[in-house]
């Protein structure tokens, strides 16, 4: 079973004439150690999908299962603990706290989880170091570049052995060097066993994923097949036919 599973998940906002079907019968699984990208245009339901997978929002129908446990069967407290310990969430607009330094932002989720401040700081610093940000640890978010802020946001999401990483357009406004750095970090977390889902409209970002799932009007309409051997690139790839 996949680490994250969405089973026939639907989400409606509003009622009557104002009803919006943001997600319709979405089935999706993300294995440990793999990176799945959900790609679709603006308004296709990507952020909704991610917030539901991260238990920040309830589906209208269907089920979300994380590590074998259905979210609908969990108490509020259980879900809060899941969000603190298991899920790392990178929001579309980074969401660093402006009053905290980079290091404090990264260690915050650990402290919230009851880990003593000193130890949390140590773990947070290690994460920043790994991402090449040790010398920015004492900087506040408004003293960091966009790329640095985004890397801090990812450090915060993967710190403390969390096993599910959910990221919304994580290289949104970044140039390609910074965007690549961010995705390299996400992929490295996956290779350590994290299950990761990234949602984006950007094919270059999606191309980092092991599997790309295409979403349109709240429905999953297609997905890539795992890439064949790299050699096929150099010998010419046969055109793939339509897939049901």
């Amino acid at each position, binding site marked *: 079973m996949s680490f994250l599973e969405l089973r026939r998940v639907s989400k409606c906002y509003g009622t009557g004439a104002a009803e919006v079907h943001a997600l319709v019968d979405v089935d999706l699984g993300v294995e440990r150690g793999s990176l799945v990208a959900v790609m679709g245009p603006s308004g296709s339901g990507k952020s909704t999908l991610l917030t539901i997978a991260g238990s920040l929002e309830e589906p209208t129908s269907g089920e979300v299962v994380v590590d074998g446990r259905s979210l609908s069967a969990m108490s509020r407290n259980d879900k809060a603990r899941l969000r603190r310990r298991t899920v790392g969430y990178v929001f579309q607009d980074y969401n660093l706290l402006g009053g905290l330094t980079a290091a404090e932002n990264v260690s915050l989720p650990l402290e919230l989880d009851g880990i003593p401040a000193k130890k949390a700081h140590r773990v947070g610093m290690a994460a920043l170091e790994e991402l090449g940000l040790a010398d920015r640890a004492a900087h506040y978010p408004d003293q960091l570049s966009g790329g640095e802020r985004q890397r801090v946001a990812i450090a915060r999401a993967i710190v403390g052995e969390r096993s599910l990483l959910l990221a919304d357009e994580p290289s949104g406004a970044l140039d390609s060097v910074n965007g690549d750095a961010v995705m390299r970090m996400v992929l490295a977390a996956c290779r350590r066993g994290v299950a990761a889902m990234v949602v984006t409209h950007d094919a*270059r970002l999606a*191309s980092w994923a092991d599997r790309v799932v295409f979403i349109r009007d709240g429905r999953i309409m297609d997905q890539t097949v795992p890439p064949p051997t790299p050699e096929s*690139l150099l010998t010419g*790839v046969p055109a793939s036919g339509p897939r049901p």
Partner: protein
Amino acid sequence: MSVRHALLAFLSEGPKYGLQLRQEFEESTGEIWPLNAGQVYSTLQRLERDDLIESDDRGEEAGPQKMFRITEAGRSELDVWLSTPPDMTEPPRDELVIKVLSALRVPGISVHDVIQVHRRYVVELMQQWTRLKEDEGDLDLTFALVADAELLRLDSIARWLDTADGRLRRAGTEAPSERTGPRIRRRLVARR
């Protein structure tokens, strides 16, 4: 793409043997631009005939053991080539664009499905390039540059497909007017 000018660029570093040129060509671009030995030597022969390169034994056929130098004329030819933008005023005859435009006219075909087939294929290729670049780009600068170019080219195709998809959705997908072709041509001619 110009094999001539690539060879001139290699020779601008200093005199080289035919074999050496062939090997350098293969090392730097061989994987993406395979060229057989015959093409290298015949190009060298033409360069010598045009006085853009020279050798000590002019009469002899170009081959692995023959040594070449760039001439002054060759060097200025190279300089001009490097700083002359290739002609990009005409849109290339893009088969993908033609397929999408054609799909609009074919009864019983959803242009959005056609777009998705191509989008998936492009993204799958990009996945492979991204993986290759991560695996090998650190070791090989030339390869990383080529992979960047390929990723950006494919990305622009993916973006065109997304843009076309969105535009067709907003327009409702009726067939384009008959005048589309001539109109495009007229505008481009006017610009040149």
